Structures are given as C-alpha cells and as structure tokens.
C-alpha cells in the first residue's frame, strides 16, 4: 500500500530512533502528549515506545472522541433507539466504536440491540442517509461522533437531507473540537500551576489537521510556550515528530511544525470548513468525560437545520451521570494518571468487562495498554 508501507519501515525507524537517542539531553526527561487517539493506538500497536530512549515519555491525551463521550450522552442514544412513542419506529445508525461503551444501568448500545432495538452499524454517514431514503417507514437517527475529521461528512449528509426534504432523518450531534480540548488541558491546574502533569510539547493530530490546518495550533505554541508538531498517522511519522519535538525543546523553541506536510497545509481544507460552518454552530459548553464542562468545545446543528436535529425532534433531558467511583478515566484522559494507576485496571475493568470508555475504545489509553502493552508492567 503506497504511502502506508514506506511509512512503517523498520530500517528508517532505527535511523530516526538513533537520532533521537543522540539528541536527547540525558539530564532531563521529555514529556510529550500525543493528543490524538489514533496516535495512542499506533504507538501501542507498533511498539514505538521500545524505540524511544528512557527519558522520552509519552502522555496520552483525550483525543479519543469515544472515550470523552460522557455516560449521559450514551444514555440518550439508547433512549433514542428504544423510543416507542412516535409515528415511526426508530432506527439508530452508529459507527461501531460506540457499541460497547458502558452506559447507565449496565446498558450499552450493543445490549440494547440484543434486547431488540434497531441499532445498525454503519461505515459512513452516507449509509445512514441511504437507510432513511430506503426505509421511509422508519425514523432514522444518526449518532454522530468524532472530532473535526468526522464532522464534515455529517455536514454533507445534513445538507443532502435538507435538499431532499427527508422527513425521517435526524442527527444526534456529539461532534467535539480539538483546540478547545488542548486549551482545557493546558489551563488545568495540574498543568498550569501544580505541575503534576508536565507537558513539554504536543504531537498534533494527523487527520483533524488535514481539515483545520496547522494554523489553529499557533495560539498554543505562542500563548503557552509549548511546541506542537503535527504528525502523520503512521509510526514513522510519530517517531519523526518526536525527534522534532526533542529538538525544539533543546533549542528553547515553541513553534508549530508540520511533519504531515503531505496532507496538511496551514489553511487545511477550506471546502470542508465552509460546509461545517454552514451546518453547525458552537454549543456554549459541553460535558466531556473526565474534563467536566468545557466551554465552546462542541457543535450542534444551526437553527436553519433544526428539523434534522435529533435533540430538537426528540426532546430529552440530558443527565450528567458520574463515572463509576473506581473509574479513573477522567484522570487518565487528562494525563494525570496512567492506566496502571487505576485500581480496577486489568482486574474488574478489562476490554471484555469495561467500566469506563478508556477501556472500550481501541484507542483509549487503557485498552491500548491492556491489549498491546500490558506485558511491560507484568514483567
């Protein structure tokens, strides 16, 4: 696979690893947060940590849109899927990632499906729209999740639904924003004042950046004096980005560098951004699992598209449901704790019996560590 295989090459990996080993200052530790869950997954899945010197530590950030979905929002999705009060029975279409996230009362979308709710996994938002067109007797709700990468496809299907005047299609919108989350972390007491979480720089998300461009990160670099290197999705990209971060730290620079130049420009994808701006607007705040209410961090449909907003068509009360008391997902998402710091990690909470979302999503820090890296702590 072109543009994939070459970016996973072991020989080049050793070359970069050697350069990192030479570049690091042995007298200090470097803490880099990889914001994007895809990077967390890549680091674990390829064993990138093995190629890094001991004083380069990766801190996992909250860039996993499934992990940060609060229990209350999953409850709402289940409520939508099991509603029986309307003219038409409901079909909830969702990306498969959400199916096993634990919600209240031991439920999940997977369990609701087993109990008879019409919940269908789709690969694309377009599939949800197609189902609505093919089955006019059903009320189709699309459970939209994801950061800025996944939002433009949702914008497209909303506009298509509007153009078609589809009466039986709505979107349950849970799209969240990257810069808001990064700000929130950098503003958190643990980072800003307490110094419990040390972050020397960020590995910026790959695919989010193809849409928003590298420009939004310039604020963080300047305001917080933290270097940001946008990295591609493959393990060589991540390794290279780490080398660039090490050099920035050594040289006292705090700039935005773009390692993923083959797909990311400063402006990003103007067409996609315009489509999103047409359909969505900012919510004043939104609850993130582990981060609490974060201002201007999520999107909802604009008034012009209100008829396609599931939350307006099906009024529900949004409850703030606290995490299980033993669950440390919140702290882990903020980088304050590691999966192994959580008392229930690997015992009560496993991928088969997840307590929190960090264990469900394959990019969650806990799932990644359990599935790929657990042997390091066991040894």
């Amino acid at each position, binding site marked *: *696979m072109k543009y*994939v295989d070459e970016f*996973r*090459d*072991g020989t080049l*990996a*050793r070359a970069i*690893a050697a350069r990192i080993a030479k570049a690091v200052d042995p007298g200090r530790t470097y803490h880099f947060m990889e914001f994007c*869950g*895809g990077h967390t997954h890549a680091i*674990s*899945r*390829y*064993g*990138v*940590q*093995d*190629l890094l010197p001991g004083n380069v530590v990766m801190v996992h950030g909250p860039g*996993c*849109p*499934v992990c940060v979905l609060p229990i209350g929002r999953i409850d709402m999705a289940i409520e939508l899927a099991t509603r029986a009060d309307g003219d038409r029975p409901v079909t909830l279409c969702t*990306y*498969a*990632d959400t*199916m*096993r996230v634990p919600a209240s009362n031991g439920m999940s979308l997977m369990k609701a499906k087993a109990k008879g709710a019409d919940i*269908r*996994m*789709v*690969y*694309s938002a377009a*599939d949800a729209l197609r189902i609505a067109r093919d089955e006019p007797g059903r009320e189709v709700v699309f459970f939209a999740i*994801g950061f800025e990468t*996944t939002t433009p496809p949702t914008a497209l299907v909303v506009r298509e639904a509007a153009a078609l005047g589809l009466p039986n299609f709505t979107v349950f919108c849970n799209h969240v924003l990257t810069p808001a989350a990064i700000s929130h972390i950098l503003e958190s007491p643990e980072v800003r004042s307490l110094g419990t979480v040390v972050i020397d720089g960020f590995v910026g998300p790959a695919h989010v950046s193809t849409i928003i461009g590298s420009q939004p990160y310039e604020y963080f670099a300047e305001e917080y004096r933290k270097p940001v290197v946008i990295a591609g999705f493959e*393990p*060589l990209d991540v390794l290279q980005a780490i080398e660039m971060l090490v050099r920035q730290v050594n040289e006292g620079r705090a700039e935005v560098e773009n390692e993923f130049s083959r797909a990311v420009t400063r402006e990003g994808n103007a067409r996609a951004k315009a489509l999103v701006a047409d359909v969505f607007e900012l919510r004043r705040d939104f609850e993130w699992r582990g981060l609490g209410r974060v201002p201007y961090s999520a999107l909802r449909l604009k008034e012009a598209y209100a008829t396609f907003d599931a939350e307006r068509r099906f009024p529900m009360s949004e409850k703030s449901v606290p995490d299980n008391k033993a669950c440390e997902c919140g702290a882990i998402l903020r980088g304050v704790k590691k999966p192994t710091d959580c008392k229930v990690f690997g015992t009560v909470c*496993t*991928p*088969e019996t997840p307590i929190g979302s960090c264990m469900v*999503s*394959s*990019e969650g820090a806990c799932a990644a560590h*359990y*599935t*790929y*890296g*657990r*042997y390091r702590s*066991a040894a």
Partner: protein
Amino acid sequence: MSEVRKGYVRPIDFKRGLVDMSHGSGGRAMAQLIDELFLEAFDNEWLREMNDQARVPVPAGRLVVATDSHVVSPLFFPGGDIGCLSVHGTVNDVAMAGARPLYLTSGFILEEGFPLADLRRIVESMAAAAREAGVPIVTGDTKVVEKGKGDGVFINTTGVGVVPEGVEVSGDRARPGDAILVSGTMGDHGVAIMSLRENLSFETTIRSDTAALHGLVAAMVGAVPSVHCLRDPTRGGLATTLNEIARQSRCGMRLEETAIPVRPEVAAACELLGLDPLYCANEGKLIAICAAQDASALLGAMRGHPLGRDAAKIGEVVEDPHHFVQMRTGFGGSRMVDWLAGEQLPRIC
C-alpha cells in the same frame, strides 16, 4: 370423474416452496423432504438403510469425536456457504487431533418460511463438500421452528474419526523452544464475511478460505508423527487460538509480524475498516507447533500440499509465567497479541 392416481405424490416445489411446520412434524411431509432432498444429495449405504441411526464398524486406534454448530450469517458468501462450512469445520476439528475423519452427522434446525431453493443449495453444497472430503454424512435430523425463532437455518455437524496410537496431538503439548507454523494466509474468511455485512461492502470480492484440512494433516503427521499441537484458528483468529494454546500449555509465545502471511487485499480491507487480520477467522488454515528440529520437515510437508503452499514459520514458544503471546512488529517495536475481547468490530477512530 377423475381417478385418484395410485402412488402419486406431488414432488416438492424447490423453486418457490418454503419450509413450513409440517416439514418438522415427523409425518409425510417431513419424510418427503428427507427423501427428495437429504437422501438424494447425501446418498450412501447407511442413509439408504433409512434408519434413525447408522451402524458403522469400530476402527482400530482411538476414536475421536467433535461437534460444531453453524450459525453463520450471511448463509452464502464468496468461496462457500453454511453448508460446506459445516462439513469443513467438523472434519477439521477431528483432523486437528491428528486423526482421520470417518463419518459425519448433520442436524438441521430450519426456520418456518425459509426458501426451499436456498435449502437445496446448502444441502447440495454440503453433499459436494462431503464427497470431496471422502467423509459421508451417515445420519441426521431435521426440526422446524416457528418464524422468528431461527435465523433461516442452523446446522450442527458431529464428526467421528480415528487416530492411531502414538500420535499425541494436544493443545497442552507446546514446549519452550518449539516452532510455531501456520499453513497459509490469515484472516481471509473473517474479512470475507465482514465485508458482506451491510454498509461495509467492497467492490472487490474477498473469498473465504473454507476447506477440509484432513489431507494436509495426514501429510504432516506422516512427515512428523510427533507434532505437538494442531489447531485451526477459526473464531477469534490466529491471536485468540495462540492464546488458548499458550494457556493450555502454560507457556508464552514470541511471533515475528513480518513472517505472518496475509493477503494484500485482506490487509487493505482491514486498514479500511480498522480491523486486525490476526483476529479475523480462518476456515481453511491451521496452526502447527512442533519441536524446533522438526520444523523444517513439517514446513516441507505443508508446502508440498495444495492447501499449505504459503505455509510459514511465524514464531516460537518460550518460557513465560504470564503465558503472554508477544510479537515483534515490522517496525521494530514489540506488542502483545492479546485475547480478543468480544467480536472484533470495525472502527472509525
């Protein structure tokens, strides 16, 4: 006045007919279905006896028995269907003891309303698979459940075989230092099925690898009678099966990612859907574990057989109190290859 024609029974309409409750009730309708469909397709000396059981000679050696129920959906897929899958699956389970499969049974649970055309297609596929494998279906059973209580058709097959004394193939026999081999490419069946699911399909056809492996096993046991373990990595894929063996044998395993054969289309489909081929089912492949010094002979025997052309050594068994299966990635780092947590689902994140 028309005459009642003696002995005339209207033949079953396989083109448009549907299964109904009378086909399972034990009466004339069921007898006719058995006669015109199952006996016609499976035809052998035991079935011709028309008993509720089959009497077979007891072979010398140890009796091996295995059973499998097949609930695959969709019923028809590129490379096979639930029918031949049910034959291959049980033939393989018996063969994984190093045994020669001798006879099969088949039990059908049919859902009311299931099209007889599909049933005939499935039964004929089973018959062809059984004939090709040289393993007759000697007895069976048919039941019908009400509409809504079955997924079209469920099939159970039980297989009986014989393993000679001196051949001890078992999941608890892997030892540190042993070589781990696979007979071919991983993930084909699982990806073929996944890509037929609504909303996940490709325009390229990825075929299931479903096949009967007893011929390959016979060649392998002939070359290396002391082979330690054989298992076919079905549900849960290579990763899950290796973890099972590691736990049974109380050892660890170390694999080399670059040595594991995966077809490029299967790898690509997995990339698109966010799946890992190590966890995708295989229905025509096996894992073999043998003493290090036998690896070369075993690999030779495998590669000499049509179903083992892509056989490869993928790793070795090691001492490990945690029984971890670990893998060195092509990238140079290391990762665990853990048990599968539930069914693997595609992902967007």
